[in-house]
Every structure is written in structure tokens, then in C-alpha cells.
């Protein structure tokens, strides 16, 4: 069930995504656990709002980080990983 460009994701129920000043990173919080995200994962998940297409997110990130090779592949892989971990869920 790999991520398609026309998928729309939202942060999974019972999960919270937020910026943490003290840790200087984005985190995902959920019952009994938390994940500290690296900078690129944080930038991607920040755009996950239950409304925006994955293709749009890819375009935004591409503009933000121009010239990064295979960035689209990395973003799709990140979504697959987040989906498998149940941090995000599909809305469509």
C-alpha cells in the first residue's frame, strides 16, 4: 500500500505533532510513546493537514530544497514509513 501522489494524509488519531523548542525538533506524541523527528521528516509532516495532496507537498519541499537528487523518492519513502508506524493515516 505504497504512498501515491494523489493521497492525502492527516496526523493519526490520538497522535499529536508539535515543535519542541527544548529538543530543537518536531515530535510526534502518542499514548506511551514519542518520536523525535529529524529536520527533513519534520518539514514534510508539518505539511500534513488532512487537506493537502502528497503531490503538492512534494512540490513545496522541492522548492524549499532545490537541487536535492531523488527528493521525491525520499519523501514518498518517508510517508510509507510514517504510515507503517501509524503516525499518519489516509483521508481519501
Amino acid at each position: 500500500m505504497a504512498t501515491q501522489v494523489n493521497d492525502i494524509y492527516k496526523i493519526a488519531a490520538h497522535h499529536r505533532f508539535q515543535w519542541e523548542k527544548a529538543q530543537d525538533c518536531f515530535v510526534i506524541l502518542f499514548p506511551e510513546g514519542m518520536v523525535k523527528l529529524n529536520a527533513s521528516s519534520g518539514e514534510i509532516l508539518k505539511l500534513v493537514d488532512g487537506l493537502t495532496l502528497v503531490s503538492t507537498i512534494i512540490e513545496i519541499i522541492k522548492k524549499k530544497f532545490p537541487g536535492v537528487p531523488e527528493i521525491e523518492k525520499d519523501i514518498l519513502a518517508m510517508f510509507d514509513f510514517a504510515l507503517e508506524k501509524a503516525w499518519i493515516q489516509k483521508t481519501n
Partner: protein
Amino acid sequence: MAVQNNGVSSSTTSTQPLWLLAEITYRCPLHCAFCYNPTDYDKHTQNELDTKTWIKVLNQARDLGALQLGISGGEPLLRDDIEIIVEEAHQLGYYSNLITSGVGLTDKRIDAFKKGGLDHIQLSMHDITEEINNFITNTKTFELKKKVAAMIKDRGYPMVLNVVIHRYNIDHVKEILEMAEALGADYVELANTQYYGWSLINRNQLMPTKEQIDHAELVTNQFRDRVGNKMKVFFVVPDYFAERPKKCMNGWGEVFMIVTANGDVLPCHSARVLPNMVFPNVKDDELKGAWYDSPAFNKFRGDEWMKEPCRTCPEKENDLGGCRCQAFLLTGDAASADPVCTLSPNRHVIEQAVLDAQNPVLQAQPIIFRTDKNSKKINNGEEKDRLGKFHAVP
């Protein structure tokens, strides 16, 4: 609590507290035989922190980086200021968790928690049978727990059930998981009893056999295969039956900070059993100094304190020598290897404990339930003989 990175990069080591556990009261309507609270808790029921001080604690810990807040006890609902604490925690950006037996949870209170921004409620369950629920908790709470589970679900909370596993319920793990499924649980923690506090002195009455544990784990895995992602099941392995100790608290003073009912600041729930330690107290000390500078929090950080065989052990990073409290309680030396480790020269203590728990004469001794009366007796030295059998004398 699982602290993970996302598998892409970033460090998992942190010198900031990520988790604050507020053991807000030691008063409890239940009398569980397996409670890990200190057996001398009666000393700490009269000097609980007030609401204002808890608010200060929440703010200071949040400034240090704490994110996950557990509101625990005893039974936190015995305090009438949980609503205020929950609201403050939410405003500060904590992911907050009320850890409760369910006793005292009314519609009015759960609605106030929801409104205040409480993120989840962890409910303790004990068995599928009324008989064992009521026996092990020494209360009549079986029907209430089902009612509370329904209230939690009804408010749209994730349903997190915690079931402490012991000799009396371990053969019901399949049925317990099925009950959790029927209640709509999202997370179930099957927490095999760890032997501290009350559970330590009741170890001969609580510890199951290796065969029972193996069977329970098999049943759990079969259940996981069937339900898949719908329900997350954690099976906390009982360390007495393992070959290596647990990485207790994810490292001393690494991730967890506990503030007790009377304001002591601890790196782990049972740290006060350790000798010659002075713990900071929020009435006199700032949490920042407690975390970074106090001798207590620095005592077992890193590996400088280790003795052999831990010091030169190639596996030392995996478990950091195990649990300091268990090492002290069972060997008399807090800096020795956790005796659970098969490389520990004291491993025989664990093997003897497993044998003792199968000894019918020892099994037949009465359970000492967690009651104010029993705690007072222990404080008065009346249970010295019983305690002495489980605590090594340094």
C-alpha cells in the same frame, strides 16, 4: 515509554527529561498485592504537595523539555485538583496521561478532563473474573472497571489498558486480550509483575512459572497475528526469567523524572530504597538543578560507577547494568550488576527466588496487601522478618 528516533537520523540520547511522572498521591482505594509503591508510603500521605506547587513543577519540567506527563499515584482521582492540573498541562503543551484504577471517575470529571485537554487515560484492569479482580485488589471493583472503560471510549479517548500479570491471572491472558478487544482497546500493556515495593514482599505469592510465562507470550503473539494493527499489545517481559537485565528507566537520569506526592524528585519510582542518597525536593529545589546538578541524579549516570563484570562488559550499553534498586535490594550493593544478568556473580539469588516461588510452604504464606494499616505496621518494624527475607542486608 518507548523513545525512538524515526529511523532516518537524529540521536536518541538525551540529557533532557522527556517524561514527567507525577505520583500525585499515595492514597488509594485499591489494595493491590503487586503495587510497586513504597511499602512505607504511609509516611507520605500527610504531606502532599498543594495545587500551586504542582503547577510550579509542571512549568519547571516543561522548561527542561519534558513532554509526556503521567498523572499517577496511588489513585490520582482522590485529589480534587486534577482538573486544574490537566488544564495547566495542556496549556503548557504536555501530552498528558491520567493513570487510574477508574475509582472516582464520574461523567462530570471525565467531561472536565476532556474540556481541559487531557490526552489519554490509562485504566488498570485485573482479570476477566470478578473473583480474581476483587481478590488481588482486595476491593469490589470489577463492574466499575467495565463501566469506566465504556466512559473512556464514549469520550473519544484512546483506550489504554494496563494489566499487571501474576500467578493468578497469567493463565487468562487470552481471555483478557479478548475482553480488551471487546471493550475497543487501542493499546494493552500486559505488564508482568516487577518485584519492588509490595510486590517484592509478595513475590512468593505472585510469581508465575516459566512455563506459564512462555504460554502467555505465545498466546499474546497469536492474538497479535490475528488483530494486526487494530490493537497494540505490549508484553513486558518479567526480568527474573530473562538472561540479561532490563535497561531500567532507559538509563538513570536520562529520560524520566518522577516527582512524588511529597515532592521528592527521583530518577525512578523506587529510588528511595537506595542507601545514603539525598534526593532533591521541589519544596526547596528547582527541577533544573535537581536534574543536572544533584548528586542523586548524577550518581548512576554513564558508566563510571560500574563495577565488574559490568565495567568491561561488551554489552554494557544495552542495559547499563540493569536496575540499581534491584541490585541493591537483592545483593545489598547498588553499584553491583543487576543479579538478573547471568554474568552477575549473584545470579543465584534470582534462581533461588524462582525456586522459592514454587515452594508450597512459602506460597501458602499470606499476602500482605497494600493497606494503610500494613504500611504503618511495616513502618513500626512489625513485618521485619518478612521484609528481611526479600531485602539483602548490605
